[in-house]
């Protein structure tokens, strides 16, 4: 399919139309940052942002998600549907975050398929938007997860002066464009040229010092290196890095009980917490701060490549800019590249 083009105003009308029928999630300014929220119309759409504070993984893997409810005494369990639900259009996903969905797909699939995640994933259409001005902390180019398109985009939008060059990436994306064909028109030759120009401009605007080849192999030999001790000294184990990481998926499960009614929910957890791997009885396989910090980096840069064949850092730079102690994953990569 040839690329399409959608003008800014058509996009707004399209969102107006969609918001009437289904859930539209888009970045919304909140406090001093952006976060993905449900929007009611095209007016609320703002694609002029660098990236959201909390990644859009919150749409697929909500921070708090009910697993099921039950009666305490009788043990009767009710699941509030792990299938169906509204179609969700997720607009304005940056390439790094879109690529992060592929990482989550790999984890949540496999021998046991996570029903809640796959329900959310199937009903969500991802409209990715290319970056136009990457932050100095961004390094998606290192892993090839950006900055123009992400690997889970159903449709990739790239801003050119007349609107957005629209490239459908999946069957779902093509069907979407066919269904809403009145909002799109075929991209002109000039627009395509502008798209190429824009892509190479953004690519060039990013630093290219880091390399990811061979990183897992080298890291597997560095497990006992004193570097980790030194690195972790300034870490304060706040766990912000994992809460704002688009590929961190670990969750904890809690029960809420009110009389005879019980509910089991899950929600994000962080491996940086000293209670993450502590067992009943007090044994802890990762008892010290270096163990825990190392686990996070190894999980992303070594364990995941070993298990799934790809590094699970997408270079969004959130942890780099947000870490209060300035523990920088780019330095870790630079150290072992």
């Amino acid at each position, binding site marked *: 399919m040839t690329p399409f083009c959608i003008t800014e105003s058509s996009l707004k009308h399209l969102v107006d139309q969609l918001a009437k029928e289904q859930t539209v999630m888009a970045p919304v300014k*909140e*406090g*001093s*940052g952006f*976060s993905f929220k449900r929007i009611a119309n095209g007016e609320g759409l703002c694609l002029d942002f660098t990236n959201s*504070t*909390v990644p859009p993984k919150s749409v697929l893997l909500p*921070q*708090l998600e009910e697993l099921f409810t039950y009666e305490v005494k009788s043990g009767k369990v009710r699941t509030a549907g792990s299938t169906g639900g509204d179609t969700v259009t997720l607009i304005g996903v940056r390439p790094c975050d879109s690529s992060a969905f592929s990482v989550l797909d790999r984890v949540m699939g496999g021998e046991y398929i996570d029903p809640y995640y796959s329900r959310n994933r199937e009903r969500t259409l991802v409209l990715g938007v290319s970056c136009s001005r990457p932050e*100095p*902390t961004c390094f998606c180019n290192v892993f090839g997860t950006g900055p123009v398109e992400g690997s889970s985009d159903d449709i990739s939008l790239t801003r050119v002066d007349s609107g957005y060059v629209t490239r459908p990436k999946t069957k779902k994306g093509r069907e979407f464009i066919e269904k809403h064909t009145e909002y799109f028109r075929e991209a002109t030759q000039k627009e395509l040229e502008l798209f190429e120009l824009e892509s190479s401009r953004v690519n060039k605007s990013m630093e290219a010092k880091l390399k990811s080849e061979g990183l897992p192999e080298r890291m597997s030999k560095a497990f006992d290196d004193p570097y980790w001790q030194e690195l972790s*000294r*300034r870490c*304060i*184990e*706040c*766990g*912000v890095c994992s*809460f*704002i990481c688009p590929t961190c998926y670990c969750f*904890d499960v*809690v029960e*809420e009980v009110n009389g005879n009614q019980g509910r089991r*929910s*899950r*929600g*994000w*957890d*962080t491996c940086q*917490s000293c*209670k993450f791997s502590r067992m009943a009885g007090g044994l802890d396989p990762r008892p010290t701060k270096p163990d825990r910090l190392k686990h996070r980096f190894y999980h992303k840069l070594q364990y995941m490549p070993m298990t799934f064949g790809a590094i699970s850092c997408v270079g969004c730079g959130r942890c*780099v*800019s*947000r870490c*209060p*102690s*300035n523990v*920088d994953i*780019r*330095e870790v990569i630079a150290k072992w590249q």
Partner: protein
Amino acid sequence: MIGYEKGSSPGRARPCFVSSPQDATRLVWNQYCAASLPKYLIGAKDKVGIVAKGCDGRAIVELIKDKQVDRDRIVIIAPACLGVKRASQTSRKEILAGYCERCSNRISPIADIAILGNSNEKDAAERFARDVKAGKPSKRGILWMEEFQRCTKCLACIKSCPLCYCTECELDGSLSSLVSKLRMPTELPTFHLIRAMHMAGRCVGCGACEAACPADIPLTDLYSRINEEVEKMLGYVPGIDVNTTPPVELPRPKVEKK
């Protein structure tokens, strides 16, 4: 020796631990030295030197009072602080952090070595003091309940706070059922109110919580408001004098010796 070194990107400085004179060249001092260093004193076994801004000094005073830090084991180097800058999330500019605008004293109340800087810096510091007039009143009218709803419940405020030294925290959901471990929306105000109560009369306004918060909740605004009330009510200001006792404490009953 705990101080600051150059960070990984421009406009950042980060904590750094120096154990030999050669390494001391790594140390820097500028307006990006934001991280709260007294946090690293808790549980430290050796004798350590520490670079302390005004707020850090106040935190150390509180830690000494709470018997978490031994005064004899630390050497405090206190440079004059001009307030720290942080990158604005909305515009690509650097602004003076909100909590620094409210800072009551930019020089540590306790110091072994005080560095008042050269005359230029001194001027700047005086200008700063004049502008700030020993602490602007905190902002009022923040819609706190809305702010609380933004909370991601990552507990970074607790983990980054130099005065949160409890090994088991009642707010992380593992010790009590006061607040669940996960982000239950109805519990977010509870979480923040309890934490605010725990900080009442203790917060030294270093802004570590605010700097760490991924949701940018202006926590120090709330804590400083409560501190103002505590000062009005009980005449107590935290972090000034090692010898004062915390405000809400029982006088010890005198036990008569037989």
